């Protein structure tokens, strides 16, 4: 699996969505289920899957599918 596939799979599992739904509009504001429980769960999955330790400030700005990519990029994970 590529990093992008792994990245998408985390969202697919946690939000029970199809890959097509992921994109620019997949944000905390748009996705009803996006609460702190899921937010923290995804972040744990990022750390586990990509073997990184995320910065708390970054964790708190993680409010969209795209933002997650930027956070991982900062940690040298290319998607």
């Amino acid at each position, binding site marked *: 699996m590529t990093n992008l596939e792994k990245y998408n799979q985390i969202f697919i599992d*946690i939000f*029970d969505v199809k890959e097509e739904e992921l994109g620019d509009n997949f944000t905390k504001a748009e996705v009803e289920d996006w*609460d*702190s*429980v*899921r*937010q*923290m*769960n995804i*972040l*744990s999955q990022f750390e586990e899957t990509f073997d990184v330790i995320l910065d*708390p*400030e970054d*964790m*708190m*700005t993680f*409010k969209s599918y795209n933002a997650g990519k930027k956070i991982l990029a900062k940690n040298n994970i290319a998607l």
Partner: protein
Amino acid sequence: MTEIGGIIKGENMLDIRKTCSACGNRIALLSDSGEAKTYEELVTFADGFAAAVPSHSLVFILAENSFGAVMGYVACLLHECVPLLLNSATEASQLRHLCEVYTPSYIWLPDVNSSIGDSYTAIFKASGYTLLQTGYKPFDLHSDLALLLSTSGSTGSPKLVRLSRQNVHSNAESIAQYLQITAEERPITSLPLYYSFGLSVINSHLLRGATILLTKYSVSDSEFWQFAREQHATSLSGVPYTWQMLKQLRFMRMQTPDLRTLTQAGGKLSPELAKEYIDWAAANGKRFYVMYGQTEATARMSYLPWDVAAEKPGSIGVAIPNGRFELRDMDGIAISEPDKQGELVYYGPNVSMGYAQKSEDLLLGDCNNGCLHTGDIAMLDSDGDYYIVGRMKRFLKIFGLRIGLDEVERLILSHFDTDCYCCGTDEKLHVKVTNPDVAGQIPLFLEQQIHLFRQYIQISVVEKILRNEVGKVIAQ
């Protein structure tokens, strides 16, 4: 009337008129958008609200952590209306059901939700909230009744806890005493208002004339911390999940010089994590309080004094001021020696009047007489501190959500063609079903019904749920 810390308190809890006479232009509420409301403004608002709502009315409040919700709540208490506080995200069908069961004359809800009551008439608007008149005829409520809270918070069950004016007042007073709350405090809301623990933070601070920082953001949002820093929040309260999340966010490394008081209740924090927080707090000039309570006792029943906490992580400490505990063995006889397990029974003026299941129950008087069987199994150490070791009743507490296993079973049985049995821990709900065809649908169904994230629901398919002749499940 007695005078405490320059603020006069009266018989009637949250009689903000009295707080007002001592410090009317003090700020009561601050919002994360920078607006403020003084104690005087709360009283003025309450008078306007009362002009629209006759006293002794039943009012549903769809409560967000915002001005509108808190001001409506305070107005109800001041003018002896009886509010039921509900999650503003309550599903329309559940809300309709509650309305049919309790026939409230009014609903106070965020403007954005006001379409819920298309058939109702909007009669008053303020601070982003709308008052709807339902057309249900007013009916008699017991004269001591002050407030209604839901026990489940999640399953949409119509079972409510009936709280009296004395319950609300005495519990706020006890909490203000042991946490040494003064008018200088600035708690930030990290829990919902409709949750007894979250509400107790509001009540105990309004009682002392403090300034409450209201936000809808979660501790996992940077906006929350920006608000906390800018407005110098002095205290933070959380359920075990809040403190787990804060650990993940490396809270202990954040710069939080203004935060002095940290409290935890709403379920058991692991002793290891409790110890970590207790030690860190002590080394950083903060106080970490582990506490214990139930909505049936308004909110709080015990606290672990912060200065002995380091030696006793895992303990719930001692009963709050004006309350006391008793342990009872299987035969109902009081246990006085340490290290023996028994049911934890609580006595105090904050023990609720009882439950309500239907509107007629709102006329009932006090059914508990100040004594609450907590359903928790506890023991005592030789210093007189209590430890919870188990639970008699069948419910789990996940993320501070109380999940009644019988209710979950009923939900599943009524929607699917399967037998089922629920069990689990405070970490995970475990559902056993006999029909493999429906197993896959259950996690999503339960998530919608009880708002527990699927990942915390484990499903297994079993051949048969073993029951005895009266239908009771045996040894799983």
